[in-house]
């Protein structure tokens, strides 16, 4: 299966804390992306990191990529209740074009 794995499956934190989610994948990639899905809604693209990049920032989001370990992490700093959602990593493989999603992390931020 090309599907990645995310860890943890569920995470519950207090508002203001940082949240870290990890993603592992199996094949060589062109890029890795993170998406958020609010309950009952579609997926929203958060950030994309290319295979030749190691770290990327966007607002309160920080993404790292370690291609030698085939893993990525998403850090959300100073979390807010509105960050409560499921977060998915997704990869595009070298030479291919489709996105393959991980299993997702359900984040709950308690006010």
């Amino acid at each position: 299966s090309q599907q990645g794995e995310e860890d943890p499956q569920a995470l519950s934190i207090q508002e203001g804390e940082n949240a870290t989610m990890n993603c592992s994948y199996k094949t060589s990639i062109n890029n890795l992306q993170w998406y958020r899905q609010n309950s009952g809604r579609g997926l929203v693209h958060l950030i994309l990191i290319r295979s030749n990049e190691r770290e990327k920032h966007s607002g309160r989001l920080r993404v790292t990529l370690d291609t030698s370990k085939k893993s990525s992490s998403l850090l959300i700093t100073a979390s807010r209740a509105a960050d409560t959602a499921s977060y998915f990593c997704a990869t595009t493989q070298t030479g291919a074009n489709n996105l393959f999603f991980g299993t997702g992390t359900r984040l709950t931020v308690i006010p």
Partner: protein
Amino acid sequence: DTAVSQTPKYLVTQMGNDKSIKCEQNLGHDTMYWYKQDSKKFLKIMFSYNNKELIINETVPNRFSPKSPDKAHLNLHINSLELGDSAVYFCASSQDRGTTGRNYGYTFGSGTRLTVV
């Protein structure tokens, strides 16, 4: 304006029926996709399509067929619906499908929840 819109949002139908889900994007993107999200939230690609090529995930039953009247539309037609087809179906689009690979994120529709009874 909604970038990727799907209709209907909810669809309840009986086994054996044929149904279609419509998808339209107003982003001018080159490629459109259909994904299936099951009850465990796993997202699996079903099809990707641009005006030159249709790529079908080999695990998708041939009861499912994409139909694209033009670049901005990719509808999903399902024949002889089965209980196991119950899921949320997402349409998505992206800008580029170059041979260098993806460098853009996908834009997703809000999903169609299909329930087969």
